[in-house]
């Protein structure tokens, strides 16, 4: 099992990516809301699925742990 942790900037997260936050919340992103609460430097990542509804707000340059990319799972 690899110990390598891949990080991704919040602003680079795409729909379908699965990420883990600093407080260990995991979500598979189904929507990205730009300019969260009217602030251009903030965005919100949302999982709206059967499993959960969870919203995480983050500065665009905040690094999150990337668990998997949508494009990887599709291949």
């Amino acid at each position, binding site marked *: 099992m690899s110990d390598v942790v891949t990080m991704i900037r919040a602003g680079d997260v795409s729909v379908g990516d699965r990420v883990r936050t600093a*407080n260990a919340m995991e979500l598979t992103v189904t929507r990205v809301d730009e300019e969260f*609460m009217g602030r251009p430097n903030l965005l919100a990542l949302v999982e*709206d699925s*059967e499993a959960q*509804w969870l*919203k*995480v*707000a983050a500065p665009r340059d905040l690094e999150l742990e990337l668990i998997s990319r949508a494009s990887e799972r599709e291949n």
Partner: protein
Amino acid sequence: MDARWDLTAIDGEPVDSAALEGRALLVVNVASRCGLTPQYEGLERLQRSYGGARFTVLGVPCNQFGGQEPGGAEEIQAFCVATYATSFPLTEKLDVNGRRQHPLYAWLTSAPDGDGRAGEVEWNFEKFLVAPDRQGITRFRPAVEPDDERVVEAIEALLGE
């Protein structure tokens, strides 16, 4: 508009719906670890100023925003009382958005905010002021402080003060 819901208090007991009947409600989804958590102070000031037979704040703990309400019922209640000396009631932890959204929030989120936007709760500490006859909902987004004059004026208008 169906405005009846079964609610469970944070201690696991059913909320006495008769006790809420005829009262204006300020329903707020709360969280203990949010940057907006100090809004508890303003909510408690509203409860002390207007709380009684005609008005109450009703806190709804929710962990759907940043996972900022991770604790159990006892932890949440202890935090509120110890940190902010809250006296208003809390429900059990609920989903306010998504497929397991509580019926109370299905009803509340049908109401638009001041910009005409209805739908999802945006973040912790969104406020819904519900008229005593349940025929009107005034919605305030999270950044609006509990003691903002718009909130106070809306409460006083409902109470005829």
